[in-house]
């Protein structure tokens, strides 16, 4: 039970080919255990977001392999990857992408409705509970483009949690939050890891946030220099 590997990066290389080829990730290899809360730090432009996109199966153009729950993501069909993202991964973008055509509540509910395990009203109750945890439930009927940056960020986190994914990946989830809300998010993450055995992989620039997590992976120029 303890120390089951849930996420594994196997020698990941990633290059962008524009006018000239730029290698952004270089032989990235690490594992994350179930229930671990891992922070990823590094200078701006060192490749953190790029890595997270690959690990979350949203980018399939790379070398190496990603294993989620010991299953390889290589060679999976687009539809299967979509299913993995829906069921097993919660993702919070650096620039909190929400659907402006939908209300806050609907934004949080949509991945749950897509998964189709719970009934609509159950998804709704769960979504409301999540919004309450982040203290944004009064905004549930507002449209996404009517929120402040910090509010959007919390909605995006709530959306990532709706299907109780086994892995939650966040790209600077507290970047736009004040101290108090940042702490709320941190506490929730810690609880998810320790009580629910959910795994967290969080990119952050907040040193204190990183220090308080279980483990830190530091990246520099596309390589892991410390973990």
């Amino acid at each position, binding site marked *: 039970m303890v120390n089951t590997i849930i996420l594994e990066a196997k020698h990941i290389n990633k290059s962008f080919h524009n006018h000239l080829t730029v290698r952004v990730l270089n032989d990235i290899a690490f594992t994350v255990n179930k229930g671990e809360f891992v922070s990823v730090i590094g200078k701006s432009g060192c490749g953190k977001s790029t890595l997270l996109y690959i690990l979350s199966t949203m980018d399939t153009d790379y070398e190496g392999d990603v294993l989620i729950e010991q299953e390889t993501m290589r060679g999976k069909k687009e539809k299967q990857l979509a*299913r993995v993202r829906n069921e097993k991964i919660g993702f919070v973008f650096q620039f909190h992408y929400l*659907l*402006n055509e939908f209300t806050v509540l609907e934004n949080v509910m949509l991945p749950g409705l*897509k998964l189709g395990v719970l009934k609509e009203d159950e998804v709704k109750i769960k979504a409301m509970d999540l919004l309450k945890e982040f203290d944004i439930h009064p905004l549930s009927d507002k449209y996404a483009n009517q929120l402040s940056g910090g509010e959007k960020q919390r909605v995006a986190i709530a959306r990532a949690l709706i299907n109780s994914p086994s892995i939650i990946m966040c790209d600077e989830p507290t970047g736009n939050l004040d101290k108090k809300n940042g702490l709320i998010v941190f506490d929730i993450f810690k609880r998810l890891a320790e009580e629910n055995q959910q795994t967290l992989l969080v990119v952050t620039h907040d040193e204190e946030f990183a220090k308080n997590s279980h483990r830190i992976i530091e990246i520099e120029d596309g390589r892991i220099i410390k973990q």
Partner: protein
Amino acid sequence: MNTKLILRIAKSLLLARWKQTLVAAIGVTFSITMFIALLSFMAGLNDLLDGLMLNRTAHIRLYNDIKPSIHQPVNISSEFKGSYNFIQSIKSSSSRNEIYNSGAIMQALKTDNRVKGVAPKITAQVFFNDGAIDITGIVSGIDAKAESRLFYFSDYVVAGNSLDIMNVSNSVILGKALADKLMANIGDAVHVTTIKQERFSLKVVGFFQSGIQELDKVQSYASISTTQKILGKPSNYITDIQIKLSDINLAPSIAKEYAQLFQTDAEDIQTANAQFETGSFVRTLISYAVGITLLIVAGFGIYNILNMMIYEKMDSIAILKATGFSGIDVIRIFIVIALSIGMFGGLLGLLFGFLMSFTIDQIPFVTASLPTIKTYPINYNPVFYIIGFTFSLATTYVAGWAPARKASKIDPVIIIRGK
């Protein structure tokens, strides 16, 4: 479950930018409106031109042509059976062009259910006497009732009542141009001389105008019995039997059959009016060419609008994909969006197209040559509506499908990074 969710997402995406949606739908509506209105109008004009001729022409005409017998005695003679006979300068022997047994033939025709109606006719060559001048003319003896029912005769009678030629003895309906020449008014008597130099006095009971000036200068109509009297023929004398069929396309084959059966000549409308067929065909071809051009232009318009709309929704596609919606889901969502626009815009287009053609139908169109036409002609053919609607669905479908498919295939991150 999934379907419901997809419909719901499509609806939200549509309504969130309803102005843009409306613009797209109006694009479809406009195209379909123009298509319906233009094609209905063109088809209406075509029908008018066709009708000008078709309405008044028998599908099959039975008559006895004056022509040399095909069975020349030398060919029948057993003596010359083995030889090849050249015969020159054959002359027609029969001078009788009446149809034998016309009464029985008409009875037989009336029981044939492929036949819509039968009208007898006699034609008499006469001279109309106008003082010292004689004007050549034709008196056609007709059954006014049958003629009106089958060939819209009464529609072309512009003054007087078409049935009067049956009710008033020795009466005639003159072509308008002929009457003008003779300076004859209704109630006047005109004098005619037959080829056999007999003189008759006929009472003018009406004028008729066919739309063809040359015809109106010579043509007049009288009852069958009056014409028989003019010709000095008995009451069973009939030279033409005009037949209208339920299906005009059967005319050539039925004509052959009747020629055999009744031992007369039979001419079908297709043979008699080959040049008319060509004209009609070319006009139809032009309508279709215009219709297809309209649809193609409209198609590109619709395609562009929808394409733009989908590219504006790229972000939403990326987010949906990032949160676990698959490429197929994305395609479905956008097809629902596209088809909704196609359906809504298309139906409105049909409605406006109908209203527009209805309006054209009310615009007065009066011309001396077409006495029966009062307004611009419109053909309300449901086929145009079916094509229009199918087309609006088909183009919006393709317009939605192509960019959505492209978007569904790429990794969501590529869209997100591209911002």
